[in-house]
C-alpha cells in the first residue's frame, strides 16, 4: 500500500466521484456489511465491486459528479483482469510442464515450495497495493487518515479479517472450482498475482478474488473442462453481476433515505 497503493487510492478516492463524509460512511458501511455477509455465505465477493458501486450509488444520490470515464475503465478492468489471470495461469502451467516436470520429483517439490512462497508474497503485496488501497482510498482522500496511518490500521484489520473470517472462502475457492495440487495451485496463484500486479501498476482497482477464480478456472480447464465445476462458477459469475448492482442500489437508496430526513 505504501509503495504502490497511491495510484489505486487516487482512482477510487479522488477521480471516480467527489466525496463528502456521508458518501464515504454510507458506501464503506454498506460494502463491509455485504462483504462480511457474503464471506459468511461462502460466496467469494469482490470488495472492489462493492466499494466502487456503493461510492457511485451514494455519489449519485448526493448529486456529486461521477467521472463515467474512470468508471468505465474500472468496469473494463474488472472484465479484463480475470481473463488475463485465466491466460497467464495457462502460460505459467505450460512453462512449468516444460521446465519443472523435467526435474526429479523431490527437487521439483523444493522449487515448488520457493515458488509458492513467492506467489503468496505477490498476492499479499497486491492485497496491500490494490485491495487495501481501494478500501482506504476514499478515507485517505477525504482526509480522515494519512496514507501511513491508513496502511497501519488497514494491515491490522486485514490480519484480523484473515484470521477470523477467511477460512470459509478459502475452503470454497480451494476445493469448490477444481481440486488443486501444489503444481496447479502455484500456476493459478501466480497467474492471478501477476494480473493484479499489472492492473495495480495501471492504477486500476481490480479484484484479486476474481483473478484467482479466473486463473483456477484456467488451470482447471487446461487439465480438462470437466474438472472445473460449472455450478460453482455460475454462482460466482452471478455474484459478479449482482454485487455491484445491489451495492449501487442499496447505497443509492440509503443515501436518498438519509437525505429525506
Amino acid at each position: 500500500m505504501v509503495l504502490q497503493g497511491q495510484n489505486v487510492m487516487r482512482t477510487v478516492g479522488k477521480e471516480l466521484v467527489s466525496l463528502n463524509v456521508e458518501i464515504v460512511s454510507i458506501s464503506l458501511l454498506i460494502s463491509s456489511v455485504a462483504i462480511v455477509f457474503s464471506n459468511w455465505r461462502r460466496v467469494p465477493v469482490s470488495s472492489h465491486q462493492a466499494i466502487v458501486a456503493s461510492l457511485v450509488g451514494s455519489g449519485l444520490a448526493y448529486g456529486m459528479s461521477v467521472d463515467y470515464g474512470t468508471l468505465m475503465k474500472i468496469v473494463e478492468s474488472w472484465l479484463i483482469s480475470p481473463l488475463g489471470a485465466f491466460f497467464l495461469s495457462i502460460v505459467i502451467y505450460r512453462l512449468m510442464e516444460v521446465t519443472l516436470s523435467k526435474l526429479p520429483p523431490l527437487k521439483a517439490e523444493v522449487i515448488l515450495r520457493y515458488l509458492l512462497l513467492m506467489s503468496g508474497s505477490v498476492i499479499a503485496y497486491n492485497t496491500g497495493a490494490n485491495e487495501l488501497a481501494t478500501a482506504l482510498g476514499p478515507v485517505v482522500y477525504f482526509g480522515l487518515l494519512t496514507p501511513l496511518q491508513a496502511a497501519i490500521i488497514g494491515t491490522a484489520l486485514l490480519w484480523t479479517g484473515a484470521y477470523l473470517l477467511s477460512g470459509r472462502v478459502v475452503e470454497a475457492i480451494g476445493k469448490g472450482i477444481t481440486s488443486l495440487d501444489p503444481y496447479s495451485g502455484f500456476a493459478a496463484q501466480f497467474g492471478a498475482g501477476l494480473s493484479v500486479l499489472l492492473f495495480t501498476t495501471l492504477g486500476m482497482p481490480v479484484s484479486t478474488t476474481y483473478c484467482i477464480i479466473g486463473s483456477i478456472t484456467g488451470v482447471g480447464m487446461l487439465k480438462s473442462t470437466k474438472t472445473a465445476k460449472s455450478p460453482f462458477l455460475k454462482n460466482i459469475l452471478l455474484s459478479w453481476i449482482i454485487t455491484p448492482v445491489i451495492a449501487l442500489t442499496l447505497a443509492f437508496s440509503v443515501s436518498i433515505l438519509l437525505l429525506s430526513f
Partner: protein
Amino acid sequence: MFKGIKKILVGGEKEGEILELFKEHIEKLSEASETLRIAIESDDASLNYEICELERTGDIIRREIALRLYEGAFLPGIRGSFYRLAELIDECLDMVEDTSVYFSLIPGINPEIRDLCVRVAEINCKMVDYLYEAFSSLETDADLSDKTIRIRAKEQEVDGLKHQINKKMAKVPVNSFWEGINLTNFVNSLVGISDRIEDAADMIQILNVSLR
C-alpha cells in the same frame, strides 16, 4: 547466513530426515525378506524371532515418519501420500512377519513346492531392492516408470509361480487339518508379499505424478 534464511523460509531438514527414515524402513524390509529367504532355503524356523524384531523396528520407523510429517515436512498436498507409503511398507513387513510365523508352524516344506517357494522368496528380495531404487530415484530421476515397471514385471512372475505352487499343492500330503491350513496360509502369505511391494511402488509413482 544464507543457510539460516533458507532454513526459516523453506526448511529442508525435516524432509531430509524423512527421506532417510524411508530408506531405513525399506532396508528393514530388505533385511526381513532376506532373512525369510534364508529361513525357507535352510529350513530354519528359528529366524522367525529376527524377522519379528525387524517388523517391530519398522513400526517404530513408521511412527517416526508420521511424527515428522505432522511437524510440517513437505508440502501439505503430498504429506498424505508419504504417510500412505510408510503404511504400505509397514504392511509389507507385516506380511513378511506373518509368512515367517506360518512357516514356523509347519514341519518343513514339501520338496514338491520347496524350490518354487525359495524362488518366490528370492523374487521378493529383488523386488524390495527395486523398491529402494525407485524411492531413491525420487531425488535423482525425472522418470520413474522404468523402475516401477520392473517391479510390476517381477510381481507377474510371482503370479505365475503362485499358479504352479497351487497346482502342486494338491499333491502335497498333510498330517492334519491344521497343518494343511498353516501350509496354505504360508503359501498365500509368501506370494502376497509381492502384491504389497507393488502397492508401495504404485504409491511412489503417485508421489511422482502428483508433483508434475
